[in-house]
């Protein structure tokens, strides 16, 4: 039996981002949102562990109230219950605040053996919340995991961490937190019954004042501008002349010799 928490973030679909060419400002007024890709893997992993070992899966998110629809989305992917830590000020928070908010909500309300997070979110990709949350809760963590096994008899998980120098297999006593990589699993596409079933699952609303604290940011964003890349953008045909022109240009640039 495992009581699992899967944390997820509701992020802008980067395909919808438009750019004002002159100022390089991002135009976000018509963007759609989705559950961050690696968090889907986290939810999927939690669902699989529950199917295998029994227990429960709670999906938890920190978001502004306008993100409400993320809850049914998450619930259609396996969890039994969702927790919605919400406040309008959460539209622009930084990882340290998210970790503190998650910690406060979890400590006050949710029993758990294991917390699963994605390795990072597809919008900011700071890769901080997982380990920061573990620190706040005073529990051990294993990051960049692509294989997770629960050893019931010893109340621990064995995790394969995929690191630059190879795989590091670690044992982590529960309660613990892991952050997982996208190659850990392939998230299921919710079936219609799962989508309809999401409406019947409980959602607990946790407003900011219920947590009794404020969480000040430590970083200050000066601006966020579209990345530029100034390239020549010259095009040639596949005919022999075109190819020779390209080769000539490359030689002139000194990149081939």
């Amino acid at each position: 039996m495992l009581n699992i928490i899967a944390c997820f973030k509701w992020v802008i679909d980067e395909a919808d981002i438009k750019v004002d060419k002159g100022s390089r400002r991002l135009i976000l007024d018509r963007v759609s949102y989705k559950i961050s890709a690696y968090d889907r893997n986290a939810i999927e992993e939690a669902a699989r562990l529950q199917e295998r070992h029994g227990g429960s899966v709670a999906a938890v998110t920190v978001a502004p109230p306008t993100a409400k629809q993320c809850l049914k989305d998450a619930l259609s992917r396996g969890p039994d219950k969702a927790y919605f830590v919400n406040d309008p000020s959460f539209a622009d928070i930084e990882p340290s605040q998210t970790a503190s908010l998650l910690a406060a909500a979890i400590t006050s309300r949710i029993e758990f053996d294991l917390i699963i997070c994605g390795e990072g979110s597809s919008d900011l990709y700071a890769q901080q919340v997982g380990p920061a949350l573990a620190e706040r809760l005073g529990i051990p963590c294993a990051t960049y995991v692509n294989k997770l096994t629960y050893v019931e008899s010893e109340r621990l998980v064995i995790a394969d961490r995929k690191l630059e120098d190879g795989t590091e297999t670690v044992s982590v006593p529960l309660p613990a937190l892991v952050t997982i990589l996208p190659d850990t699993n392939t998230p299921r596409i919710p079936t219609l019954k799962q989508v309809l079933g999401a409406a019947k699952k409980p959602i607990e609303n946790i407003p900011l004042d219920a947590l009794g604290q404020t969480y000040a940011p430590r970083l200050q964003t000066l601006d966020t501008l579209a990345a530029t890349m100034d390239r020549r953008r010259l095009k040639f045909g596949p005919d022999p002349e075109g190819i020779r022109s390209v080769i000539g240009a490359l030689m002139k640039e000194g990149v081939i010799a």
Partner: protein
Amino acid sequence: MDFKLSEEHQLIRTSVREFCQKYVEPAADEIDQQARFPEDIVKRLAQQDWLGIPFPEDYGGAGSDYLSYIIVVEELSRACATTGFTLECHTSLACYPLFKFGTEEQKKRYLLPLCKGEILGSFALTEPGAGTDAGAATTTAVLDGNQYVLNGSKIFISNAPVAGVLIIFAMTDKSKGTKGISAFIVPGKTPGLTIGKHLDKMGIRGSLTAEVFLKDCRIPKENLLGQEGQGFRIAMMTLDGGRIGIAAQALGIAQAALDESVRYSKERVQFGKPISTFQAIQWMIADMATAVEASRFLTYHAAWCYDQGLPYSKEAAMAKLFASETAVYQTNRAVQIHGGIGYIKGHKVERLYRDAKITEIYEGTSEVMRMVISGNVLR
């Protein structure tokens, strides 16, 4: 009046899009060019609970509403009109008449496996001499003891080669004209039932369309669907609902044409500028987007009427008429926007252009739609 889709409907749409991106888009070209029936995709449609969407869970369905079903058809058709249509034909033309007119026994026996996706369904009304004039059917069904004996032939029957069950319409009493037609449930492997070869079509090429031959095909008399003489009414009611499905299919095709045209016109540079900066293209896109939006609202409204238990025959006809004519016209515009490349196989708009045409023809031609609408309006 709430024009916003519920969270469930939005989630259903998102899940179909994920599915299409993963399984349907990568195969759509090949399905079209090889005229390959997407058997693997159909199996997955069953796993997603999509082959009996608006039917109760007791009968193997998902217990959802018609609008959910329409959204699924739209999104599947946006990726691949063949896939969208295969699901639509199965759901609206085969499952629906069983649900509406079948006995408990018939529903348990045939509707359950259909909705669960264990078998596919087919609807055989059209004959070489009876298209729009469905009443001119010459296929006969004669009661002989405990069985009906069917003789005749049907043409342009979708899903027939892979159907586990077909709803076949035949004359039980020639003297009564349309009131002499009855509907029958015929399992796919019944002796005396032969399916002709797969017809090579302009569009929806992966959908299996064939002739159906009945030669002393014997079925138990319990396989009569509804009453004798009720067949024409069953067919017409079935097609009413099916029209909303075809409207959704046409909507999906037109939306895809719009998506492709928007993307292409921003990327294609001529005279030093993307062609999306030229007014000629901008106006084409404006017209296309407006027409697609109108198709969407007509289609969703018809589905809403169905779900509310309100009359929907006129609304369904309007939706199909408008959405199909939009699909045909706008896929033509989409090819025009693409220029030469839009004429080349392997480019999505070339396939969309060919796929669109059938939506003006099957499940009731545009001419029949106009008859239905004027009949309603001028009453």
